[in-house]
């Protein structure tokens, strides 16, 4: 289809290749070679477009993508600049990260206008094509994952559960508490990061700059959830037994508190199990903390199949 050929050529000139320069005749000849499928009149039309005018669109498109990526990955971009030993000499950190965004486009074009997909493209680009950056700081992949997941959780569709009524829990008998049904919403993300990227993120948010030293490898078990009251995405560190309990749960399916307690106890150490009151207190603290940050929601009115 002729129109498709014209639009496709415009897309190519904006996104993929430098617009031909020189006189109109020179541009015509270059376009003729590049787009043999176009009719003479279509080539003549494209040749009259001043290269600068095409470049305006190139600038607008990639500047727009750059701003989206900076918004998703503010700390990652700060780290990338830190990792470059001589940013001024490194084309990857050229003018306003523009080259990075174009490199991501060459790696994988942005297929649909979803910020989530663009963010995934950057994550995959770094992990597959910029191992040299990861070699400079091993926590980079974890940090990218941390920031990407946070955006996903913030925007995720709502689920069919309500926040837990935490103040009422203390008034329940143990039997009543154990019979309660809770669910882990599907948008909750559990992670065991290789580095303590939560500290880096927290420092950056508090001081608007990175800490002097990026942390060495240190396993960080955590989860990202949506606060039931503020609706902000937030990370919470998890104890080993808490992580094991949440990992057991299928998303959005109701579980009795008793079934969670069994997993929690099994995942606790012998020493922890030897002090039953303290273990119960630990479990209760995990339960209420998870409820407070929306990792667990009240599933009593859930339509899903029951577990436990």
């Amino acid at each position, binding site marked *: 289809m002729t129109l498709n050929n014209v*639009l*496709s050529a415009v897309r190519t000139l904006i996104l993929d290749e430098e617009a031909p320069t020189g006189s109109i005749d020179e541009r015509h000849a270059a376009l003729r070679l590049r787009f043999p499928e176009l009719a003479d009149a279509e080539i003549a039309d494209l040749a009259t477009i001043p290269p600068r005018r095409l470049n305006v669109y190139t600038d607008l*498109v990639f500047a727009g993508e750059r701003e989206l990526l900076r918004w998703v990955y503010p700390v990652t971009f700060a780290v990338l600049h830190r990792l470059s030993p001589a940013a001024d000499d490194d084309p990857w950190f050229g003018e306003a990260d523009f080259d990075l965004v174009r490199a991501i486009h060459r790696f994988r074009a942005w297929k649909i206008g979803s910020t989530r997909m663009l963010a995934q493209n950057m994550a995959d680009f770094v992990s597959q094509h910029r191992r040299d950056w990861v070699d400079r700081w091993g926590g980079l992949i974890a940090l990218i994952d941390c920031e990407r997941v946070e955006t996903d959780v913030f925007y995720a569709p709502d689920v069919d559960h309500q926040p837990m009524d935490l103040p009422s829990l203390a008034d329940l008998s143990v039997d009543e508490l154990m019979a309660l049904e809770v669910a882990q919403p599907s948008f909750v993300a559990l992670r065991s990061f290789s580095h303590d990227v939560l500290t880096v993120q927290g420092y950056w948010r508090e001081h608007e700059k990175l800490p002097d030293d990026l942390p060495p490898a240190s396993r960080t078990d955590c989860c990202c959830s949506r606060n039931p009251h503020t609706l902000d995405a937030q990370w919470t560190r998890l104890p080993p037994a808490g992580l094991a309990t949440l990992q057991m749960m299928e998303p959005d399916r109701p579980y009795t508190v008793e079934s969670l307690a069994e997993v929690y106890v099994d995942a606790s150490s012998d020493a922890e199990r030897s002090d039953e009151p303290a273990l119960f207190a630990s479990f209760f603290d995990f339960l209420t903390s998870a409820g407070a940050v929306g990792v667990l929601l009240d599933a009593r009115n859930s339509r899903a199949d029951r577990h436990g």
Partner: protein
Amino acid sequence: MDQRKTNYGLPALGAGIGLRRPHFDEIIETNPPVRWFEIIPENFLNRGGYMADCLRKISEKYTLVAHGISVSIGSTDPFDMGHLKRLRAFCDSINSPWFSDHLCFTMVDHVNLNDLIPLPFTRDAINNVVERVKIVQDIMERPFLLENVTYYMTVSKSQMSEAEFITTILEEADCGLLLDVSNVVLNAKMHEYDPIAFLDSIPLDRVGQMHLAGFEEKDDLLLDTHGKPVSDETWDLFRAVIERVGPSSPLVEWDVAIPTLDRLMREAEMAQTKMDEVCASRAS
């Protein structure tokens, strides 16, 4: 709210404001006297949490009008029918009185360009757009308006002018026009034509809504950034448009360096005042 109708038969809502995230909390907490908000559906589709919660609260109290950015009406890629149906469901959920998007393409070869890329002013492009507008109208089942875009380059003007291109599409597709007054000012300057003559050569009886926005100069270009106050010449042209079309639903757009809600409301009042003045002089 202004209960009059535009020449195109849509409610003349008066001057509205673009709904932007920095203002959500203030709108919900203070219920400011805003006539209507224009809303970008793509910012809310498939999203829950804060975005959905704010939308729910704001839609309970205000008229919302959906203005899309992803239909890519001029593309040769097949429509994502699922996406169009989600847009329809969204418009239904907010009771949007009409739906609009841009006369351009934003995707081709299944690649997102993330900007409003101008179409060639050709018969092929017209036929393609007309066919696709009818599909959109069938799915949306509400008035559909196309917005004239800024173009920094002319992909093809060998067959017709911009005005002929727009006019033919609106008439053959039988759809409305979201007239971006600022874009007329920019295009007239960059492509050296008379904006008044342009107005008088397009079917203004199809104008269902208007946009006003600020632009920035960069070298010899005027960039439609939506990040500056509306220029005097845009206000002048706005008055010229109102003289021709009467009451309408204008909106001052900001997408960069978004000002305070208070300032946006003052700008909306400025548009309303100018529109009322011109309408009053028309009536007398």
